[in-house]
Structure formats: C-alpha cells, structure tokens
C-alpha cells in the first residue's frame, strides 16, 4: 500500500476529486493549508501600503491506495491539477505498513 500526499491549487480540488472517483478511488482526506515553494508568495496593497503574502493557500490531499494503483493515481492528479503555471503543487508517495478499518477490524488492502 502507498500513501499519496498531494498539494494542489484550491480551485482544482473538485476536478481532481471527480477524476479520482472515476478511476475507482473510494476515499481521501482533504486539508486546507498554506505554504510556499518555488512560487514563494507575492505582494498585495492595503490602503496604499505594500505587504508580502509569504504563504499561499493550497489544498492537501492524502489518500492510501493499493500499490498497484499508485502510479495511475499520481498520473490522474498530475494531469487534472496541472495548469502549467508556477504553483501547481507537489505529490509525495510513501510506503504504508498497515491499514485497519475501525468498524470491522479488517486489515491491509481490504481496509482501503
């Protein structure tokens, strides 16, 4: 099993959710986050004074999938969340030792 962590632009969340559902993903966790990468913030003006927005709003997805599906999931997210402009986000893939469903006690791929 793999844990896939993806940070994407917030306006792409709905498209990505739809695309992942279409390839059979049954669940994910979503968090609103702020951060910076190569986009590294920008400046705004309030009442004539410039200020830096150092952290840009992003959405973080976390989903655990069967190892066999990981590549397809990564590809789907990459294609759907891509705008070609700076700040499209990053995807991390990690190994997962175990998964347990709380209600039934099922483990491993059955619990995903």
């Amino acid at each position, binding site marked *: 099993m793999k844990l896939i962590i993806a940070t994407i632009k917030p306006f792409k969340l709905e498209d990505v959710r739809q695309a992942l559902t279409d390839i059979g993903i049954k669940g994910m966790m979503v968090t609103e986050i702020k951060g910076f990468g190569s986009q590294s913030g920008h400046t*705004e*003006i*309030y*009442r*004539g*004074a410039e*200020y830096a927005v150092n952290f840009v709003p992003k959405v973080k997805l976390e989903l655990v999938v069967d190892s066999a599906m990981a590549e397809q999931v990564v590809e789907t997210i990459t294609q759907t969340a891509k705008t070609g402009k700076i700040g499209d986000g990053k995807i991390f893939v990690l190994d997962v030792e175990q998964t347990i469903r709380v209600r039934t006690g099922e483990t491993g791929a059955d619990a995903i």
Partner: protein
Amino acid sequence: MYKSFLKSALVLGLGLGVPSMVFAEQEAHKLVATDTVFILNSLLFLVGGFLVFWMAAGFAMLEAGLVRSKNVTMQLTKNVALFSLACVFYYLIGYNLMYPGDTWSIDGTLSGVFATTVLEPVGVSAEAVADYSYASVGSDFFFQLMFCAATASIVSGTLAERIKLWPFLIFTVVLTAVIYPIQASWKWGGGFLDGMGFLDFAGSTVVHSVGGWAALAGAIILGPRIGKYSKEGRVVPIPGSNLTLATLGTFILWMGWFGFNGGSQLAMGSVGDVADISRIFSNTNAAAAGGAIATLILTQVMYKKPDLTMILNGALAGLVSITAEPLTPSLGAATLIGAVGGVIVVFAVPMLDRMKIDDVVGAIPVHLLSGIWGTIAVVFTNEDASLAVQIQSIIIVGAFVVITSSVMWFLLKATLGIRVEEEDEINGLDMAELGMEAYPEFSRR
C-alpha cells in the same frame, strides 16, 4: 442663516421674538399659515435629527469592520458610550454654550449662559411657544444634539485598538460639553466667525474638522498601534475584520447625511425652502458618488486593484466635502467637489502613514482634510463667500481644537494614562478591558 433665532428667544425668556426674514417671506406669499410653518420646520428638525442619529450606527459599524476582531467589542462599547455621554453633556451645558442668544460673557466668543436645556412645557399653545414663527425648542435641541454626538464619533475610529476606555470617554465628555459647543457658538450661535462672514452650511469645519483635529491631536500623543510601523520604517498593513460591516456603516452614514445637510436648511415652511432641501439632498448624494468613483479609479490606476476600504473612505470624503455648501453647487459641481475629497483620501492615507500617524479608519483624511477642502470649496459656488475669511476661520477653529484637545490628552496621559499595556494591546482590548469577545466562536487562523 444661523441657528440661533430660537435660542435667543428661549434663553432670555422673551417669548415671541419674530424674525423679520421669515415674516417678510410670509407676507410675500401668504400661502402657508404660521401654524403650518411652525409644524413643517419642527418636522424638518425631527426627521433630520433622527437621520443624523442613525449616523451613530454608521460610525459604529464602519469602525467595527475596520478594526481587528479582537477589538470589535471595545469599539462598539466606545461608540454607544460616547453617543450617550454626548446626549447628557450637551443637555447639561453644551446646548446653551452653543446658543447664547444675546447673553455672551465675552462678546461673540464665550456664551454667558451656563445652564441646562429647558424644553417647552407639555401641550404648549401657539401663544406660549418660544418662537411661534419658527420651530419648537425640542426639535431644535434634538437636531443639534445629533451633530455634537457625530463630532465625538469621529475621534473614536482614529484612536481605535490601543486607547483605554475611560480616559477616552473623559475626553468625549470635555469635547461634547465644552470644546464643540464653544467653537460652534462662534458660527452657528451667532458669534464672531459668523460676524466675519464665515460660511459653513452644515459643518465641514464646525463638525467634521473639529472631530478630525481632536483625532489628529490624539493620534500623535497616543502613538501608533504596536506593529503598524516596522523597525526599518516600513508600513505594515493591519486589515480590518469585516468589510461587510464597514460597507454597511458607510451606506448608513451616506443615508444619515441627507438629514445632516438637508436638515441644515433649518426651514421647510415655503416653496423655496422645500426646493432648496431637494437640491441639498441631490447634491449631497452626488458628492458621495463622486468621491467613491474617484477613489475607485485612482486605486485601480495606482495600485492595480481597487481598494474597498479607500472607496468607502472616498464616499465619506465626498460627503464631508459638500457639507460646507450643499445648496449652491450644480449637480455637476457637487460631483466634482466630492471627487476631490476622494482624491484627498487616496493621497492622504499613505502620507499619514509616512508620518507614522496611525489613523485606524481614515478619519483624518475623511473628516479633517476633506472638511478643510469643503470649507474652501464654498467660494467656487457661493459668491457671498470670501476665501480669506474661510481660511482664517479654518485656522482659528483648528488652533482652538488642537490646543484644547492636546491639553486634555496630555492631562489624561499624565494622570490616568491613555494607552493600554503592551500585552493587553497584543491580546486585544476585548478580553483585556472588557472580558468578552465580539465573535467568541471564531477561531483565529
């Protein structure tokens, strides 16, 4: 036209002084009965007065929206408290200080009447009213009181988020009981500025600049909010908590201004007066629109994005600019006079920041600087106005208010202290001074 016919009759107990001007107008038309004139004039004051009363809500919402959420309860508390204190102290001493009639202790400068306001008796008859040819005392008192309270409201926004509650309220008492009424007597009480030919229809100087000067003196003596100016001298923006409320507050003020300027026609008993009031409503509205549009365009051009907080300031600056002369301009001229007020806001807000004068809601550009502009602008459309007299009056009123308020601020600073502790300011005045928050269920991100 000044606002003291009525008072002179009342205070001196003369009963039935009949102003010749109103009388002559009646003779010419013979259309409106004296009873009707009395009723219509009083009605104008009452309707105007409750519109200006509602401006207290406008100030409260505007200020609540432009401070951070940790200071909202405090800002609302100050607004309701300052309004109420103004009501009591204007009754106790202010009204008679402002309208001495013929009883001056220093001629044209200081009223000789130090007494509370007394209204006409219950169910008074036409024969027994203080001024049958004009309006009821109660309507005039109610109307004028609201102007006094508006002056005090101006100060609270500038000094928000760092001033202690009680010293601020003590200042409000002195402002509404003494400082405002004395300088207002110079113009509207028939004092020396009126004698010089100074023109200020509804108070660009007498109300708005006075609030602005007191706020400016306070802002300099109190100092900026922690974190507003960085050690390297950079300006750090501190965004307001709720622009929805700030916009609602601005529209409420805009509405109240129809009473503020329209009511200041001070008479509604003839075709001419009613037509004039209609001009005033239209011009007042046009000036607000002009101010808002000027700031909308300027902030887009200068900053690449329109700044709502400045557009709100711009509409109010337009209103202040037209207040000294809302009657004589054409609609086009009124729009332009208001637009210049908007331009003043866009340039004055960053200028004050460069001087490290921290004005939380922009009251100094809106009320003081646009008030000065509006007072000067009278000369463009009213040929009775003299530029020299307008400028002289601006300086005299400004000097009086800056000196008296500075003395008060320094006295308060030396005795009670005017600024909250550093930790309290950072935690917010709501919890530190009041122990309650405006939005207790919101978490801070």
